[in-house]
């Protein structure tokens, strides 16, 4: 009987997920003794009854690398350690179904699990690994906020989309002499904001790493307007916050989703600028899930394919408890514990921040 690898995708979707799946399957197809199956919607496919798993052969993955999203579906909720159960009184509680799941994987003859996901998923992988499951991780985040890998796939695509948004906003802002605020993703790290601000040539960029001073931004805007003529583009991370204030967030009302919902900073900024005496016309654009959609750019497809091939090779070699990572120019693997221990935030003394300041960009400080 062939050995079986189970692939699943968890957390928010991200351009390049399909290219990873294809990389895994194509690498396995070159061996005599491995086959690949996929679990629908993260671990749900295994935990649900009837089980939802699909066979992944070369035909199933043909041409999927240029589609965004994931053919397996994904979820940001639940998981084997916190399975939501509705009580008789209508409230929700969470059940640990991990032991049951590990038994089920044994019945299904699974020799390796490849879990593609963000830091939440990697944490689940580590707990499963500690319970004896053969797990391999593949990092996934459009936010580029994992420190154990130089880049994550999906990030460059998100940056490209945000940059094209800046390009477009510049021409309309210039025509109307407006201030336009673009809100982009990035919870604890401002990578997408800073990259797209430099690439698109925004005048102001606000990131979570540097709390901003509204009066300084207001001054920059006044300087850019002469006799009411001028324009300013502000790129702001959803996780940015003022010097004397907090991040705008609300608790998610989705069952089992522990992440807080961020957003609304563009609107707050607009109101605060008005209050600070900024009288220019102002508009906001919130880019939202456009940053997760569409066709992955070449960079991300290549990185994703490299991750997929490497993950399958770890399975073939029997190396478990590790996550694949990119350390330029090599693809390596690092233990889960190391992978999830540190966030990758922008260092304020980095070349990137230096470059932004070097072309005169205001970072709100």
């Amino acid at each position: 009987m062939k050995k079986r690898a189970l692939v699943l995708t968890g957390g928010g979707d991200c351009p390049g997920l399909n290219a990873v799946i294809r990389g895994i399957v194509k690498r396995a197809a070159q061996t005599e003794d491995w086959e690949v199956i996929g679990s629908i919607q993260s671990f749900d496919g295994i935990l649900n009854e009837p089980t939802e798993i699909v066979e992944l052969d070369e035909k199933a993955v043909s041409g999927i690398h240029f589609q965004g999203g994931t053919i397996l579906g994904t979820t940001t909720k639940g998981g084997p350690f916190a399975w939501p159960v509705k009580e008789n009184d209508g409230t929700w509680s969470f059940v640990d179904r991990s032991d049951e799941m590990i038994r089920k994987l044994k019945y299904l003859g699974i020799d390796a699990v490849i879990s593609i996901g963000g830091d939440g998923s990697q944490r689940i992988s580590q707990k499963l690994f500690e319970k004896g499951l053969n797990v391999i991780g593949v990092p996934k985040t459009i936010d580029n906020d994992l420190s154990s890998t130089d880049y994550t796939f999906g990030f460059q695509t998100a940056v490209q989309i945000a940059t094209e948004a800046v390009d477009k906003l510049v021409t309309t802002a210039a025509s109307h002499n407006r201030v336009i605020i673009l809100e982009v993703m990035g919870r604890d790290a401002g990578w997408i904001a800073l990259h797209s601000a430099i690439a698109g040539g925004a005048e102001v960029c606000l990131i979570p790493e540097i709390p901003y001073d509204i009066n300084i931004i207001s001054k920059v805007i006044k300087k850019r307007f002469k006799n009411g003529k001028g324009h300013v583009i502000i790129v702001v991370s959803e996780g940015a916050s003022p010097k004397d204030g907090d991040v705008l967030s609300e608790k998610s009302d989705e069952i089992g989703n522990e992440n807080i919902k961020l957003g609304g900073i563009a609107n707050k900024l607009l109101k605060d600028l008005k209050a600070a005496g900024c009288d220019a016309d102002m508009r906001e654009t919130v880019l939202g899930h456009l940053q997760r959609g569409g066709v992955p750019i070449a960079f991300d497809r290549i990185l994703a394919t490299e991750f997929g091939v490497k993950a399958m090779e770890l399975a073939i070699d029997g190396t478990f408890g590790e996550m694949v990572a990119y350390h330029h120019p090599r693809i390596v693997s690092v233990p889960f514990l190391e992978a999830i221990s540190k966030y990758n935030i922008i260092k304020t003394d980095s070349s990137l921040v230096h470059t932004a300041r070097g072309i005169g960009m205001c970072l709100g400080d």
Partner: protein
Amino acid sequence: MRKRILVINSGGDCPGMNAVIRAIVKRTEQETKTESDIEWEIIGSINAFDGILAEPLELIPLNSKTVRGIHVKGGTILMTNNKRNPFKYPVKQEDGSVKNEDVSDRLIYNLKVHGFDAVIHIGGNESHKISQQLYKKGVNIIGIPKTINNDLSITDYTFGFQSAAETATEAVDKLTTTASSHNRVLILEVMGRNAGWIALHAAIAGGAGVCLIPEIPFSMDKIIEKLKTRYDRKGRGYAIIVVAEGAYPIGEKSDIVSGTISRKISAFLKDLKFEADIRETILGHLQRGGSPMAFDRILATELGVKAFELVKEKKFGTMAVHLNSKVTNIEIEKVIDKYNKVDLSGDLIQTARGVGISFGD
């Protein structure tokens, strides 16, 4: 005190050059505002070295107005040329013929007469051989690497490369749908000179079946072997071959004349009576055109800012580079004598083989 910097770009054009020029100017203007005793001036030389060499001189002042919004545009506002080496400069003779002459002394004289304190030279491998020669002759020069081919060593990436790889990948995407509809073999020829970076990246990202690069001389029989696995008994199937312009069959030599290698492979396949329809696409200068990707704009901006700072710190004879995720500088000499070829034991090659791409070996 006034200080003048001359910006020259030479060699083939490349998406991101304008972003470099813009960054140099923006960084310089900041300096002028803060340091009142030095007034920096940035001047551009039109059409590579022509602007500072050919009479009447064509030099244009660059300021924040002239560079506004240019980072979004491909090409270069200064225009460029790859046949203007001051050490082998084409000079029209009295009888109307053209002879290449060493006019480097005149170049140095012109720089002095017009009060230039430093030169920032944006160019590829060949261009920086010129930079090094000029530096040896006493010119205060700072280099910025530029090539869509990614073939300069000691820098992680060069700007323009990701844009070229993206254009080539989109071409593979498009060829895939038409190839599969007609059960054809489609050959896509891409740039790269003696390195296969663009081809390899486009083949992995686009999902081609065969990728031919100069680093791995190919065998026609091996290609046929791979193509056969792509077709069923009814002759249904398709294949995409991405070939670098510098690729060549085992036992032959590299040509690098646009269209040669793809037509050669096509003719080979037809001679060997491979049964599917075969067509060629030569991507050509589409790879140099268009708006640069965000990645390249950022890299170009980083290098432009750094280049001015190197002038200010008088680190002449060095080049601004992106190395180990940091923007730093390195002696031009060290960069030009090593060509950056695809590492055959690297992970990129292993990934390609891992998804079943054949290199014809």
